[in-house]
């Protein structure tokens, strides 16, 4: 107990809890949110990688082969595995958030959230299947 009371009816002394810089580690939903935001970096990385690939393709066969050899180095393979995991996390967490932002009404009735999430997965699997088909035909 302090000897000096610092509270009077006319000067209330509120306590404001400071927010720690580690607030995002305090609860799993916060950590998941920060991970979701950070995994936009791997998404950006793959976009840059694709641009690099296109440039190599434009420069001719030798340049493209150099590009492929570079990608085979263990460092790149590791980086790509980590970034791919990040992209999957990013995509799946956003799939599950879509119904919050997107309300679809048919004949005045709101479509269930699970159905909108399901459509995301259908779109993803469908597009992946098309890419695999093209790749197998090539």
């Amino acid at each position, binding site marked *: 107990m*302090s000897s000096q009371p610092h509270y009077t009816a006319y000067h209330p002394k509120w306590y404001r809890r400071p*927010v720690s810089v580690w*607030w995002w580690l*305090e609860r799993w939903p916060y950590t998941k*949110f920060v991970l979701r935001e950070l995994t936009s970096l791997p998404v950006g990385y793959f976009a840059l990688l694709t641009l690099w690939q296109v440039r190599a393709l434009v420069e001719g066969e030798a340049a493209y082969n150099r590009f492929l050899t570079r990608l085979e180095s263990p460092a790149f393979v590791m980086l790509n595995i980590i970034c791919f995991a990040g992209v999957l996390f990013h995509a799946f967490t956003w799939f599950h*958030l879509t119904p919050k932002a997107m309300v679809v009404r048919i004949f005045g009735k709101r479509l269930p959230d699970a159905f909108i999430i399901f459509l995301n997965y259908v779109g993803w699997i469908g597009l992946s299947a098309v890419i695999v088909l093209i790749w197998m035909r090539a």
Partner: protein
Amino acid sequence: MTDTITLAIARYRPEREAEPTFQEYEVPFRQDWAILDALNHVKDQLDGTLSFRWSCRMGVCGSCGMMVNGQPTLTCAAFLPSYLPGPIRVEALRFFPIVRDLVVDITDFMNKLKKVKPWIIREEEKPLSEGEYLQTPNELDRYKHHSMCINCLLCYAACPVIGLEPNFIGPAAIALAQRYNMDSRDQGAAERLSILSGDEGMWQCTFVGECTEVCPKGVDPAGAIQQYKLTGATHWLKSVLLPWASK
């Protein structure tokens, strides 16, 4: 079977403490007791100096929101058996200035709430002789869940943006703005958009989504804000592409 359970309650007595400290109380364990009942037992039987807000005891008034084991919780709707074996940590709602013990100051929220004009705005009221403003069940269904808000402020205590950006208008106020925007009788959407698309408005929201998770009434503030962002973005795009049409 347990006879008692321990409550660790954050006490803040500004005349003697610089910051909250925990005090433990042993209360009878009863299956049908909510945490609020246990707090009332402490107040009535063990320590009359404990301060906290409560009123209806049935999840309607929104006064008894507190942090229970770090989670924003309506203490009249959280029952002791869910917290076995204890101790149960009870603190004042996070991100609000603490006045005393478990009582927080909500003046800031009340000001924010007023800013979003949560009432029906009409360009021109129709005369009484023309009767009521009618609404179909489908029209009611569009906003009804947003209208269930009891201002318990659990969503503010769950939102890290409120902690980091205290000016953010916040989940409940934006959900309530959206409640009126989606009401077929209302014509004030443009007025509210100009407030909510500003620096303190919806774009501060980073979509952590915890406001919706902790809401005891299914209001879904996170959904309301994201849908409002979509409206705001569409409105902005229209004003760029068709400047004459958005006038």
